[in-house]
């Protein structure tokens, strides 16, 4: 058990090292899953709530954005600890990361500071896996953006460029190819956020209702999956805009409501990272036996493969 856990860790480190070494974002070659268990009752906004400690976290490696101005000046590897849960009506994402400095912006007269920030990116079309760098016209992305001191915003990127000015106006959008991102209208600001900085790390809870009436915000359903990607800005380095670190695409797999709600302590969350050559399992220590873990991992991999093949079929037909 110990050995498989170690192997998993090493494999994750290797993946992280390789992706950092390349200095580019591993886009579609990566298809890892983040399980989103169904929880009965309300989801806690409090970053210190027991639930967040109990759920297993996926380790998401981030690499510096080095494609467009303004480039990130920091190329050190960063990692986010991510977990999620839903209760049938709401989705919560919990993100934790270590950070030596708490950077908050917006204090009176503060022209100099940039807050630490996190973005979580989803495809507007749940079935799609858009261009990882903030989508494109065919496949726009919906981004929830949180900045310390500024709060949370729901944004859309890639939605309007390529369209004629008249069409853009009709949709109330204004983005262009060189500047794809824009804030969604007030009625689409459905995310709530709460963050806490303690002992050298940030904990952030993001919660939204699963349903959405805005065409630029995907509706989520229990039992379904949606692609997800992450970005982080380090305030102490004055990171903002393209000066950031990003992840590749992952899959949020929402557990069906019909299934009996497992108690959080018994939840088996397995993160599987699949690259083109290797399959790696990260089995958390909470699992009672390595066999159970292996079987679960295999099962999920198979399901993922089936989903992947089915989706590919759906896309090609």
């Amino acid at each position, binding site marked *: 058990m110990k050995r498989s856990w170690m192997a998993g860790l090493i494999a994750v480190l290797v993946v992280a090292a390789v992706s950092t070494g390349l200095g580019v974002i591993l886009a579609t070659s990566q298809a890892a899953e983040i399980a989103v268990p169904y929880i009965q009752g309300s989801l806690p906004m409090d970053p210190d709530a027991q639930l967040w400690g109990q759920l297993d976290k996926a380790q998401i490696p981030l690499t510096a954005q080095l494609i467009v101005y303004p480039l990130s*000046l920091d190329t050190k590897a960063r990692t986010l600890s991510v977990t999620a849960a839903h209760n049938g009506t709401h989705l919560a994402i919990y993100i934790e990361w270590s950070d030596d400095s708490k950077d908050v912006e*917006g204090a009176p*007269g503060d022209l100099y500071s940039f807050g630490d920030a996190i973005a979580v990116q989803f495809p507007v079309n749940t079935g799609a896996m858009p261009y990882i760098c903030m989508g494109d016209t065919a496949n726009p992305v919906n981004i929830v953006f949180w900045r310390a001191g500024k709060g949370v915003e729901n944004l859309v990127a890639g939605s309007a460029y390529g369209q004629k000015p008249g069409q853009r106006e009709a949709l109330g959008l204004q983005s262009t190819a060189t*500047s794809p991102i824009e804030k969604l209208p007030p009625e689409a600001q459905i995310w709530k956020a709460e963050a806490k900085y303690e002992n050298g790390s940030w904990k952030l809870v993001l919660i939204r209702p699963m349903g959405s009436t805005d065409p630029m915000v995907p509706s989520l359903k229990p039992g379904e999956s949606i692609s997800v990607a992450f970005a982080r800005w380090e305030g102490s380095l004055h990171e*903002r805009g393209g000066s950031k670190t990003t992840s590749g695409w992952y899959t949020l797999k929402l557990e069906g409501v019909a299934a009996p709600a497992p108690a959080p302590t018994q939840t088996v969350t397995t993160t599987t990272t699949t690259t083109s050559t290797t399959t790696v399992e990260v089995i958390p220590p909470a699992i009672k036996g390595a066999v159970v873990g292996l079987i679960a991992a295999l099962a999920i991999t198979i399901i993922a493969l089936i989903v992947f093949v089915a989706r590919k079929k759906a896309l090609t037909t």
Partner: protein
Amino acid sequence: MVRAQVSMVMVLDKCIGCHTCSITCKHVWTNREGQEYAWWNNVETRPGVGYPKTWEDQDKYGGGWVLENGKLKLRLEVMKKRDPPKITDYYQPYDYDYEALFTDQLQDKQPVANPINAYTGEPMDIKWSPNWDDDLAGANIYGRMDPNWRTLEKEIYFNFKNTFMFYLPRICNHCLNPACLAACPRKAIYKRPEDGIVLIDQKRCRGYRFCTIACPYKKVYYNWKTGRSEKCILCYPRVETGQPTVCTLSCVGKIRYMGVVLYDEEKVLEAASAPEQDLVRVQREIILDPFDPDVIRQAKADGVPENFIKAAQESPVYYMFKKWEIALPLHPEFRTLPMVFYVPPLNPVITALDARGKYTADYDTLIPTIDKLRIPIKYLANMFAAGNEEEVRKALKRLIAIREFFRLVEVEGKSKAEAAYVLEQNGLNLEDADKMYRWLALGRNRWIIPTRKVELRMKLPKKASGR
């Protein structure tokens, strides 16, 4: 491609440092939370450090463009600079506790409205403010920190008999090659094609503050309250209706002139990349002659309205910058092609009492030797001509020539034809003299601004003119 730009000339000789322009601007545009520290228009005392402190020092602030192997690059990219100016580079905004004047207890001394921190309301000691240099007659301290001394032996100018000072009012220059615009990854900053006004779209801006670093004049101000950056808008709602900006309108010294110039858009990058010595000349070259039939034809073909072309022909900016070459851009070496121009200050000749107890001054024919003027030419050249002293000499000589001409006519009773040689020696003629006199001395028709809207054009007089 011919484009029109509404721009401004400030005649520094006439600025009395009253700050009416700054106050007017503040009350119209920035009297709001988040912009307390921001002075879209400010007036500096020179020699001095300006606002924000030593803003001309680009090693510190990272503004403007640099030429690298013949290519223009943003200095902030070359320096990998990511940190915007701090509030302490400007000043800690304050107010006064006026309530105390009404509520203080009866006592022997007069009640005092003490300064309070504008953010916290706490009492505070004022340590710095815009134009602090002047407020406390501090030039003997801060004057030495002025970046324009560069190659000069500055100490001699702090000797009592050699000292000099002048005021330098500043707004956004609505540059032809704006570094603020180029630095914005959000493309939130744009230069209006119809009149060249540079604006920040408050919907697109996300507060990245690359523009506040990139503007070498430090004329973009981050609003900490809204999380977006703001800047001088050249009072575009007024300009669109043929009115001057409020700083121009309220200027006590009548130093500000506004008008349209036509320029060749395709030549902008080339002009911005010229060798330092040539920057002023090349910037003049891209300003087009609004009387040239080819220019008029091309302007019309490029959609410049008729009333803009007409305004360009009467524009004080065209005459002062392009035709007479008496106006100069501020720090052309920043390579943004600033479109607010300055007529450098004429200043007394250094005189001394001679043996008979009379003042003497050196004269070079009738024109005093420019280099004997109290303000060192090099200092002005560092400020207005990227160090090219000839540009400053030319401007000052013409300003002296026009005065000499009128002295010959008014004081010595010569006819205009007799006195015209002073003008001719300096490349001017009688018609120029008359125009200069009307504009510079009488201050007539200081702004000639075409209206933008056809429907307004029909209702307003064709030419809105100054008082």
